[in-house]
């Protein structure tokens, strides 16, 4: 089995600040970490590699210093790391990111063996869009399952994967064909620590480094800023809400509680009641 884990190097959000005047994110001096969701997907990939055999490749697109994150992933136990780096990738939005990663995944498949599962995090803690995984699945025509909380079985013989997907109000147990792309939720497993020999192997490992051209990308206008229709117009820290939270006592029945809550809302903002009354009267 060949599992590929897409990891993104992100600023440690616990230490990030938005500049109070310019409203830009102050990235300087903020240490970088592996996007935490990606660690859970790495662990899941490693667990299944250990169970069914095979290899785990980690892939990231980023500046040369993203190699640090790849080494960290090797320390945790990945077998191989691929860094996709090129000035053409600068300023990529999710469309351009998934385009570039898909090209690299195709190349990985051709070079190191057919991919069975692409693991992504549910989302990143800096971009937060949760679009890259699905973008990859669509481009590479992979079965796609998002919000995965557990992988129950990877079956190489009949080429299927069975997993649990968290959805509104419950958990779905799903089975699909390989190759597949899954995005993992946080807290789905406990990420292992690398042993001394893993740390040494990681320190000595050659990280496979590809430019856009190496990854087989011919049309660089689909990469980076030029390939990114999304424009971030503004980033700002929301002002804390001034009004205080209010507590509504639980009623005897759920209905009583709901009524008490509505009463409280109407009392506080009579306009809501007026609007609802108008709506109900067909206005």
């Amino acid at each position, binding site marked *: 089995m060949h599992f590929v884990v897409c990891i993104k190097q992100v600023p440690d959000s616990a230490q990030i600040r938005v500049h109070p005047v310019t409203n830009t994110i102050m990235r300087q001096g903020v240490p970088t970490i592996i996007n935490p969701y990606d660690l859970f997907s790495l662990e899941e990939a490693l667990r299944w590699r250990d169970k069914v055999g095979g290899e785990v490749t980690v892939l990231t697109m980023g500046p040369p210093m993203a190699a640090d994150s790849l080494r960290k992933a090797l*320390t945790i136990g990945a077998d191989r790391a691929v860094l996709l780096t090129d000035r053409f990738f600068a300023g990529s939005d999710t469309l351009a990111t998934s385009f570039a990663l898909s090209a690299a995944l195709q190349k990985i498949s051709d070079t190191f063996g057919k991919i069975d599962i692409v693991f992504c995090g549910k989302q990143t803690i800096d971009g937060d869009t949760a679009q890259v995984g699905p973008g990859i699945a669509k481009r590479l025509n992979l079965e796609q399952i998002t919000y995965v909380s557990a992988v129950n079985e990877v079956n190489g013989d009949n080429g299927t994967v069975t997993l649990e997907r968290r959805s509104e109000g419950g958990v779905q147990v799903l089975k699909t064909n390989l190759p597949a792309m899954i995005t993992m939720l946080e807290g789905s497993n406990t990420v292992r*620590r*690398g*042993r*001394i*020999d893993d*740390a*040494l192997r*990681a*320190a*000595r490992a050659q990280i496979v480094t590809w430019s856009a051209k190496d990854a087989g990308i011919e049309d660089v206008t689909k990469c980076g800023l030029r390939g990114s229709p999304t424009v971030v117009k503004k980033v700002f820290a929301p002002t804390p809400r001034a009004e205080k939270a209010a507590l509504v006592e639980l009623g005897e029945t759920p209905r009583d509680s709901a009524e008490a809550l509505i009463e409280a809302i109407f009392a506080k903002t009579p306009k809501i009641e007026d609007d609802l009354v108008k709506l109900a009267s067909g206005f």
Partner: protein
Amino acid sequence: MPHLFALNDDHRAITDMAQTFAREKIAPHALDWDERKHFPVDVLREAAALGMGGIYTREDIGGSGLSRLDATLIFEALARGCPTVAAYLSIHNMCAWMIDRFGDAAQREKWGPALCSMDRLASYCLTEPAAGSDAAAIKMKARRDGDFYVLDGVKQFISGAGVSDLYVIMARTSDEGARGLTAFVVEKDRLSFGANEKKMGWNAQPTRQVICEDCRIPVANRLGEEGQGFRIAMAGLDGGRLNIAACSLGGAAAALDKAVAYMGERQAFGKKLDTFQALQFRLADMAIDLEASRTFLWRAASALDAKTPDATALCAMAKKFVTDACFSVANDALQLHGGYGYLADYGIEKIVRDLRVHQILEGSNEIMRLIVARHLIESRS
């Protein structure tokens, strides 16, 4: 020209691993373990699962096969979390190495893997109530009886005793002073133990007497030949001394970090402490002592790795220098915290208490001078 004192990628990777482990698994609990006198065996086993149970033990029995220099980096990193826990691990590593180095094939196979994984913990038993610095004065008897030895006597101040599973015990097989000592590996169920000593520091590991009373062990438990015990014990200590020094270094480094942070917050006479030049200079002196200690320790460790003729003397010098310098650094860090440094909650007084004993054990710092002086005089041309 290679950069002589720079760490390479391997060194950095190992340090990083041990530092992360110390930060996440040891440091948050160090004060609590000290207060409750709790010996965190589960955490030691976790460290062993990462390869720290047999750091410089060979790989065929589950060791990590690293160098002494690598070990000093690891112990410094771990001691930043807690010098006491790191120091016990150092003793365990020393025993694992002795069995690896001096054991025969059967002994290495029987005990090696369990020691490296720390399924079984080990203690080093040299000191006796009436024989500390003068180890050749050991009285514990080991009498040969057919396929057995019968051990009788008491070992004093044994770290890990009562909890450890294997005891490397130096006992007397003949009356010829240092040449009459022999090393044995004794399993816990053959022994009895004194009460856990009440001590100034090192509370996160037990210290007890180990009592051998008509203690029968198979000849197969003898490590090396009869009469080699003193040499085996001292060979273990060369590396042990580096590790103990590294534990002082880690403790002092943590204390300096705490002092630097505290002085950026605390005000006196309307100014931050770190704006007083006298105190800035104190910090600078501490940093200088720490760096001199580290550089010296690395030099001694690489001499031991290279098995140079002066390695034993260098290890003794480094042990003396580093444990003294680092104790003062920690003590100064306490002073810079004022009255708060004396309170347990700030974690400084614990470091001072823990580091104090490093000047006494694994050969007191007076004995280190004795070794150095002897080396000087013996190599006089």
